[in-house]
């Protein structure tokens, strides 16, 4: 597993770059989210979820909202000074990640969307305060990630990256300090 720095000269945001994939996970994600044909096919395939969970019947509406949301999320990731406060943008994935924030699994989305909650998710592992590695992302239309194959794949990617970092002895700053003190 390899990694790329997202913004030159800044250490806070990284992404996984899988061998054999054309680009890193964050780049690939936004290519999909800004590609109307990808979104059309996705929402056609998941139209029942769109209706059941968001009460949206129109594909054109869903695609339009996604374009809008992707733009906001891109801005949140890139625009300073917000981009230097990623701990504000990312939140723990679930309760287990809240308890121990050592390599915790995190999600980012546009938290202030009007009309309906945002379904776009960027998934990442938190390495240190304000240091994240993006593992992927998804259009999440269901309550849990386990309910659909495409979100399950993303959960696996998060867990795989966490396991990889753990196996290589990467801890967050606090844990590292604790370990050092313990010695």
């Amino acid at each position, binding site marked *: 597993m390899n990694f790329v720095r997202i913004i*030159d000269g800044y250490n806070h945001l990284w992404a996984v770059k899988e061998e054999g994939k054309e680009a890193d996970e964050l*780049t690939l994600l936004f290519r999909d989210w800004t590609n*109307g044909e990808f979104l059309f096919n996705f929402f056609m395939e998941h139209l029942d979820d769109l209706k059941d969970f968001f009460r949206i019947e129109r594909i054109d509406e869903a*695609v*339009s909202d996604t374009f809008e949301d992707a733009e906001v999320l891109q801005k949140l990731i890139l625009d300073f000074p917000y981009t230097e406060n990623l701990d504000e943008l990312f939140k723990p994935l679930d309760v287990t990640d809240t308890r121990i924030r050592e390599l915790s699994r995190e999600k980012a989305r546009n938290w202030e969307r009007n009309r309906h909650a945002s379904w776009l998710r960027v998934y990442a592992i938190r390495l240190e305060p304000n240091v994240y590695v993006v593992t992927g992302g998804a259009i999440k239309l269901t309550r849990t990630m386990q309910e659909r194959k495409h979100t399950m794949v993303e959960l696996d990617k998060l867990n795989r990256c966490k396991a990889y970092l753990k196996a290589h002895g990467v801890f967050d700053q606090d844990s590292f300090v604790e370990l050092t003190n313990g010695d």
Partner: protein
Amino acid sequence: MAGRAIQFLEAHKSEVPSRFVAEANWRKDNETWLRWSRQLAITLMGYMQDHGMKRADLAARLGVSPQYVSKLLSGTENLSFKSIAHIEDKLGITCMSIR
């Protein structure tokens, strides 16, 4: 000095740099005409859903290739007025309205 986590990421850095910032900047620099292109794509999607059409059906209706329809649906195609007029005439819809 960089923390241990950063040192690890540096040591395992891909040779292929991220394109995210460059592509995001391109989208930002081109956002005005992209908005027009997206508006057209969204209108076509609404038409397809209303008529139960797939990409190939729309291609046949427009007399173009399915690959060309993919470009139209992507919302990133820089079309001429003539091309837009052709689509509007063939489908009997209005894709773009100037306010």
